[in-house]
């Protein structure tokens, strides 16, 4: 990214797309090209509106289905409910929320997601600080290794880690799932935070060191507060990642009290007959990620852009 002109450019009003006559001096678009621009702009608007609707429809279908009586779901499409408000009912939700299996799966999801996110932030920030500001032999090589690990697919670790966890007695436990997610979140965490920490002005750290602050004080008082934005982006990214995971939970979670994704997946077997459970369940499982997404769009986009290497 170079220069502020670029940042300003997108907000500048769009010039007319093309001119047939280009006289010197302040250009005056011909009437024809102005009409063309308006029509073209109109077409673009129509196309984008259609696309936006197309993109929303599948989710709208889930939402509408979740508010319909099972008999209505079985007999007609969700769009019929749009013109018939009498079909709307919250019964599916109240049934689901009073279902202990579902609420306990929600707790399991939280019990997995929160510790994995905290652990990745803490361990990742510690290591990132070392990579950014401490000197030790082999530092560059170790960091190259971490970057290389960014793209390792989780599939590679499933079989050996299942064995390892079995030996340790944490196979099919929440602890195991947390450890697995933390480990696979670390390369990205270290990569993202190190790059951010490295941008902290050296003078700040040196001044603190001259004042006699130890490494731990430097880390907690200077680096962590300054690293806030990157930590937020990382936290959101990791939270969503773990919350939405199904594969790791399918293998490593306690199958008697699985997280939401696995619990819902188990309901898929009778897909046609229990949409009244699946639709509200899926929508409830989406609520938290969607809420975070809309509340922290900027951090989420930052995380996604930085994570595009992952």
């Amino acid at each position: 990214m170079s220069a502020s002109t670029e940042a300003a450019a997108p907000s500048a009003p769009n010039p007319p797309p093309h001119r047939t006559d280009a006289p010197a001096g302040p250009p005056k678009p011909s009437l024809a090209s102005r009409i063309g621009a308006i029509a073209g702009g109109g077409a673009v608007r129509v196309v984008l509106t259609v696309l936006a609707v197309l993109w929303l429809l599948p989710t709208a279908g889930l939402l509408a289905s979740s508010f319909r009586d099972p008999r209505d779901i079985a007999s007609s499409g969700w769009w019929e409910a749009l013109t018939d408000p009498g079909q709307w009912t919250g019964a599916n939700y109240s049934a689901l929320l009073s279902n202990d299996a579902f609420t306990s799966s929600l707790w399991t999801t939280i019990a997995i997601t929160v510790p994995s996110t905290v652990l990745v932030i803490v361990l990742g920030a510690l290591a990132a600080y070392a990579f950014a500001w401490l000197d030790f032999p082999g530092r560059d090589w170790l960091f190259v290794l971490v970057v290389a690990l960014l793209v390792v697919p989780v599939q590679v670790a499933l079989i050996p880690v299942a064995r390892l966890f079995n030996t340790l007695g944490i196979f099919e436990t929440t602890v195991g799932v947390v450890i697995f997610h933390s480990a696979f979140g670390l390369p990205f965490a270290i990569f993202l935070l190190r790059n951010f920490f490295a941008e902290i002005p050296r003078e700040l750290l040196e001044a603190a060191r001259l004042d006699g602050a130890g490494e731990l004080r430097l880390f907690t008082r200077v680096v962590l507060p300054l690293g806030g934005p990157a930590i937020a982006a990382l936290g959101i990214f990791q939270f969503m990642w773990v919350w939405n995971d199904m594969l790791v939970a399918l293998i490593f979670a306690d199958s008697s009290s699985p997280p939401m994704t696995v619990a819902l997946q188990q309901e898929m077997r009778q897909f046609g007959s229990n949409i009244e459970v699946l639709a509200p369940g899926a929508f409830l499982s989406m609520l938290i990620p969607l809420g975070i997404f809309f509340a922290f769009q900027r951090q989420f986009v930052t995380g996604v852009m930085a994570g595009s290497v992952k």
Partner: protein
Amino acid sequence: MASAKAVAVIRARPWAVACFLLPALLLLGALIVYPIGYTIQRSLFDASGSSFVGLENFQDLFTNEATRKALSNTLIWIVVAPAVATGLGLIFAVLTERIRWATAFKLVVFMPMAISMLAAGIIFRLVYEQDPDRGLANAALVTVHDTFSGGAAWPDARPRPDTGLTAQEDGAYLVDATARAGEPVLLPLVGVKPADASGEAEAAPAAADPGAVTGTVWLDFAPGGGGTQDVIDPGEKALSGLKVEAVREDGSVAASATTGDDGTFSLPAEDADGTQLRLAAGNFTAAYNGVEWLGPTLVTPAIIASYVWMWAGFAMVLIAAGLAAVPRETLEAARVDGANEWQVFRRITVPLLAPLLAVVLVTLMINVLKVFDLVYVIAPSSSQADANVLALELYRSSFGGGANQGLGSAIAVLLLVLCVPMMIMNVRRLRQEKKR
């Protein structure tokens, strides 16, 4: 490493370094580095893990029918999904540059990134429901189909026996007599419920035209009784919208026409004279019910579409960021020189974005390799074998009852190898950044 930076870094005491670094390194070592080594070794042993089999698992992987299906599907995924998602992302990014509610649009398209593949899977199971009364995709297809083809015009219509119309295997009816220009034919049908035909006009005999083969298709049933068979009696209804084809002796269609409101049709004599007339099968087949999205043939494209729904927003956001960095002056200069929007896009925007597009494409390719949830959730068990991909086959072989961790490990190694180019690319990028 630039020397300027080295000065900034303070050589810390070893125990301090250890405190900061060890927890992370231990986890990485135990859960990623060691497993890589173990998986590679495990892939050389048999299902039970007791005897060394060399590369047999890999041989299996490439010859076994089930895994080959997974392999070829993964290949389709890698080629199609990233390209479509990136292409759409590029189009969206360029189009949104010119509207005021660009942010809202981007939010809508980007939103699916936030939800789990499981939720997306459930969403698309609903979309792909077979019954057009319930599944959105088939409902849309049926609506479009019926708008353009009118559906099957008269699914119940059929001729009386021995009226010169012979039923064909595909449901069409062939007229036995040869069609002659100037000799109007009568094609009486029955079987339509009078209520269904109540909206039709009265049938009329076709005019004799020496330049055309003409005729009438009508419902040979006089309401209230009476009437003569094979004759257009007053009050008998026309069957409009029926497709009449002129068929040559070799079976090819020389001309076709649709019956009008009064049941008449007309085919040009130069094509139709001397042919046999046929009432096309499409007139009589049962109502169109859409396609079987999750059946063996369409299941993979259908799941890829749901993936594109999720990830096009990712491509769009990255490309839009790149687009914002394209110098306005360059685009303006081209426009002043008389380039139209398409030329600006094709000759300037795309080439300038090419490196970014490549990064997005490769990132998505790596991502696609790991797609497991979508396939596992969307494909019903009846067509899961047809939708199989490597990541799913790994799960099935090692955890889902397959009990062959040797094969599973071989698949894992293959996935890892496919990721190595991306690994090298990342490390290279890191090196270049350090040099700067």
